[in-house]
């Protein structure tokens, strides 16, 4: 009896507290404006200046245009010019819930958001703890694809990534999802990407304005749709026609001969793979470069450092202070990008010979890896593919240029054996 009263008093207090303060409904998750870009709206981040940072009214205009064109995370919209399928977007968007026929909705928030973020900015809560960082979709740049370097990935490329995941990274396979669900997620990734690219284009356009525009973008259909949105959307549509043509690997080719030729190319001055992937193939060559996402932050920080010693006027001082805040909250610490260690047999973009062919032919968009096509012939690319595929099995002898070349074909069983011992 002695204990009974205090417990009920506690319950009463908690209940009344909850009732008075109230756990109102959580406000719907909003898209976040790209603040790094808003404060340095240009592709060349080392030539930024305080006066080009977007003022609050301009930021608000961009947010308003984006809302009109793309809706919200709970209610995405897409203009017909985007070529996106609204039904697929609805399945992927919004909070996780079941619809009237018991079908799961809100797939992006169930599976993707914790790394890639509501806005697709790669700034989800777990992002800072991952290496490599999750992809930021907003620049519309994707690494692992079957198209030429600057082209968008095809729909099938993104489906493959979702299906297989990206080995060697935190991106898992979503192979257990149904094809319909994967379709919906791919469509939503494209949506976030087109939205992000539109945002970048709008922000960078302020510099192109004439004085009589008074710092405000035109809100006509001609400007927003025809001039800004359509060129972005068309590149996504064009991806299907930009697939790299791969000639069949030469038939009746002696694998040992091909591997030897590939080795010669790897170390030679034409393909020059050795410069970055190292004489050992361990990825220990030129290794202090950055990918495009990190490089932007490095350039901004370099610019701010160079300003630090100067006499700054109040506007510049405010800009530098704003930058500090934005970089703290809206950007991940830049990391150098190591060239792939080719002896581990882990290939992020897929381990089929065809995948390696694409990487060597076109290089990797957003990363330092350059294109070899045009410099070496398709047949020579196949030789390099064969050599690269032999590297994980090249155990006989010391690492270095003089070691003998492994000539055993990388059979499927040995792949499995290699992975089990890893």
């Amino acid at each position, binding site marked *: 009896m002695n204990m009974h009263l205090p417990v009920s008093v506690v319950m009463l207090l908690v209940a009344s507290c909850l009732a008075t303060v109230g756990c109102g409904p959580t406000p719907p998750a909003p898209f976040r404006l790209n603040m790094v870009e808003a404060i340095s709206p240009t592709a060349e981040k*080392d030539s930024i200046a305080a006066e080009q940072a977007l003022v609050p009214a301009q930021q608000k205009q961009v947010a308003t*245009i984006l809302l*009109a064109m793309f809706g919200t995370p709970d209610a995405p919209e897409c203009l017909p010019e985007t070529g996106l399928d609204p039904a697929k977007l609805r399945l992927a968007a919004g909070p996780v819930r079941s619809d009237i026929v018991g079908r799961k909705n809100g797939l992006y928030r169930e599976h993707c958001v914790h790394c890639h973020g509501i806005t697709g900015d790669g700034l989800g809560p777990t992002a800072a703890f991952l290496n490599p960082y999750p992809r930021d979709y907003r620049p519309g740049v994707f690494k692992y694809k079957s198209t030429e370097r600057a082209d968008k990935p095809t729909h099938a490329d993104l489906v493959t990534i979702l299906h297989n995941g990206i080995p060697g990274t935190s991106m898992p396979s979503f192979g257990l999802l149904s094809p319909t669900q994967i379709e919906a997620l791919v469509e939503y990734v494209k949506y976030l990407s087109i939205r992000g690219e539109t945002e970048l284009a709008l922000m960078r356009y302020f510099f192109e304005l004439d004085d009589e525009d008074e710092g405000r973008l035109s809100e*006509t259909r*001609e400007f927003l749709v025809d001039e800004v949105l359509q060129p972005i959307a068309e590149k996504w549509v064009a991806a299907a026609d930009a697939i790299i043509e791969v000639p069949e690997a030469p038939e009746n080719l002696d694998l040992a001969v091909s591997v030897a030729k590939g080795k010669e190319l790897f170390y030679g001055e034409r393909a020059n793979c050795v410069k970055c992937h190292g004489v050992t193939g361990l990825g220990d060559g030129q290794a202090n470069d950055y990918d495009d996402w990190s490089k932007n932050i490095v350039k901004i920080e370099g610019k701010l450092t160079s300003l630090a010693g100067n006499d700054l006027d109040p506007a510049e001082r405010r800009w530098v202070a704003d930058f500090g805040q934005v970089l703290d909250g809206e950007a991940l610490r830049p990391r150098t990008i190591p060239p792939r260690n080719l002896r581990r047999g882990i290939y992020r973009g897929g381990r089929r010979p065809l995948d390696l062919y694409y990487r060597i032919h076109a290089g990797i968009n957003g990363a330092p890896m350059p294109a070899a096509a045009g*410099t070496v012939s398709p047949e020579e690319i196949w030789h390099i593919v064969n050599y690269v595929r032999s590297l994980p099995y090249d155990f006989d002898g010391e690492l270095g240029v003089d070691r003998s070349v492994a000539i055993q074909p990388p059979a499927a069983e040995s792949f499995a054996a290699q992975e089990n011992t890893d």
Partner: protein
Amino acid sequence: MGLMARLVGLLLALSCAGCGPTQVSGPVADRAAAAVLRETLLSSDAADDAEVEAVASGTGWGSLKGRFIFVGNPGESTPLLVDKDTTICSKDGKKLFDQSLRVDPSSKGLADVVVFARKASRVREPMAATPLVFDQKNCEFLSPVLAARVGQPVDVRNSDPIGHNTNISGSSFNQLIPAGAGTIYTPDRETGMPVSVTCNIHPWMKAYAVFRKDGYVAVSAADGSFELANLPADEPIEFQVWHARSTGPNGGLGLDQPTLKWTSKGRFTITIPPDDIEDLGTLEVPAAALGI
């Protein structure tokens, strides 16, 4: 009872602190305006107030020239950190220097200033068929600024005995260039302001590239002089001026001149009489405009 009191306190604190609505930071869209705008964007027969394309209003052709002079002390160039392929790149202890500020010691001419027309109503010159040469030697780009017309072939060469890759930012071009070889790149779109050109194998290498549809782009020579010929005459043309080290927005270089009005973005508008050479004379660039 003391424990109970603490428990009550804790629960109170938790239930009160935990449930405020999440603060949304950053700019917030104007919902009403967005709804109206969305209607505009969805209607296919929207009012036709397209941006006015540059329409030829004059006839004849003229030229624009001038000379950029650096006023002040440019200081010493910074040696670059050369830590790859040193047998070639810093042969016999030769140092490589930052090329972003090149001032001719005798004439004080400022090189590598880019001047281009923002819009041109007409173009006189047909597309040049001979490729421009963009070469690299001793791990240095030989042209600090490459200016080409969209569609004009550029021969990207490598005169070094080692391989390079040439990576033009924002384009599709990041290509291996083997020792002593070259490859043709044809720019397929305008850059707006110049973009950076780098070599990922030798990260200190840096140049800029600017591609314009009409080809009305000039880069100042070692003595600071530039000339744009065959410009549409008798109608106002707006020019953009750029320098890699300019403190202006996007590298735009604005000058303070009594006769010509420059905007803070580094632009000026001028009408050139037909068959005339408009000479802007000596254009003084103060050290402060380049952050020195």
